[in-house]
């Protein structure tokens, strides 16, 4: 069943696609928990929240325990050291990327917390990063601290011996 076109457009090249870009602006509300976390970063602190029911500590905090569905009000200041639970060597570039490839994206389980935080690994050759590696946060200079996770530039090895994988089970 072919289309019958009127003479005025029958012999010209047909449009096959159309550009319809969309742009929307938002003013995002992080909420109480996230605001506290972001303000903490501005003061060179990493703030998590503890669940009153199961006792787990979440960072970044979201105001709720995802397993119990209750508010997590108690704030916990966390050390700046942790353990890599898993990581990825990124070889694919994308529009707007700031890092030189290859670079390493890692999940870091901060000491005292129960879910890992995603960040970058630097100051170590990418092929030497491993699960269990002990790491520490590297911050921007004090006068550049802002309420953003970018106040932590990246994590780097801190020289401590690796954690064994058995003790990290349940958190990766």
């Amino acid at each position: 069943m072919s289309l019958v076109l009127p003479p005025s457009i029958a012999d010209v090249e047909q449009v096959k696609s159309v550009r319809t870009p969309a742009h929307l602006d938002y003013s995002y509300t992080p909420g109480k928990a996230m605001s506290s976390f972001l303000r903490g970063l501005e003061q060179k602190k990493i703030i998590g929240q503890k669940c009153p029911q199961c006792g787990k500590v979440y960072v970044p905090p979201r105001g709720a325990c995802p397993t119990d569905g209750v508010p997590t009000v108690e704030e916990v200041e966390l050390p700046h050291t942790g353990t890599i639970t898993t990581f990825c060597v990124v070889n694919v570039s994308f529009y707007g990327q700031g890092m030189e490839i290859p670079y390493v994206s890692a999940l870091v389980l901060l000491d005292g917390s129960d879910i890992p935080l995603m960040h970058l690994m630097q100051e170590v050759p990418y092929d030497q990063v491993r699960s269990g590696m002990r790491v520490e946060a590297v911050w921007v200079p004090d006068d550049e601290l802002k309420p953003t996770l970018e106040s932590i530039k990246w994590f780097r090895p801190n020289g401590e011996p690796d954690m064994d994988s058995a003790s990290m089970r349940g958190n990766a």
Partner: protein
Amino acid sequence: MRDVAIVSFAQSKHVRAQTDSNEVEMLMPVVREALDNVGIGMDRVGFTCSGSTDYLSGQAFSFVMTLDSVGPWPPISESHVEMDGAWALYEAWVKLQIGEIDVALIYAYSKSSPGNVREVLTRQLDPYFVAPLWPDTIAMAGLQTRALLDSGTATPADLAAVAATARRNALANPYALLTGDASVEDLLAQPMLADPMHVWDCPPITDGCAAVVIAADDVARELSKNPAWIRGIDHRIESQALGLRDLTTSVSTATAGSKAGVSAGGFDFAELHAPFTAQELIARNSLGLDASVPINPSGGALSANPVMAAGLIRLGEAASRISRGEGNRAIATATSGPCLQQNLVCVLEGSA
């Protein structure tokens, strides 16, 4: 068919902008209240379904984040509709009809404040012919309002009466955002926002949420002394092509109403989801409701319009009123899309 009833309803105190809390923080106490009302925990909920749209929050999969508010561990059976929560309730109702579960939790929420809701909703329009022009929600409602006025079936005073009644009714609703005691004359005297629309023809921009628990047969009777039984529920959608529709009537509302059993009549009130004044008149006419049936005793969407939750709230408000004994039989509707394109109609009845 199983007898399914709404046994619990909770909603937030709706506000213009919830700047302190994110969606999870806003939703958690409301979900908890809905469950506490019937003394159950998530262990008794067989299915959870939510209604919301990522475009309002500007985040992909934002609805997944809000599952934190129900504590989905051990893993739960859940679903989501990128629509008003009333359709999430419909999905949950179907699930109960299949017979595998007896209790479902439905919730819906939105924060319209982060973005420009008038513009955000243009993304639901025809992507080739309409959306690239970005005609906002008020403009779309304006086209329908003028068509209604032109047809002679409504006057500006009729529209003002809808707004005046909504605000006055909302005075008794502690959750409503916009309340007041203006007269039709007061409202007509106000300047136009965008001819033919006045500010009062339009809903207030609202952040808010709601949660409902439905249950079947004896479980409903166990959980509630006076459940609001869903006697009929149906939804229909019209073409998205505006030019194909008669904007002065709502064929989909009439059809859904007919399938839901509206013709049996005997309604003590109706909660009609109509964010714009003209839409309330059109919906009411399409359902054949005469002046003897009070519309929107809660104040309706003109008093609080958390987009994606306002339809679920109509069902919840109607059910609560029945459960409290303030009426025995009601219609509740939800609408979606521009100019009443898609409509859900539900007939609710108590045991009286």
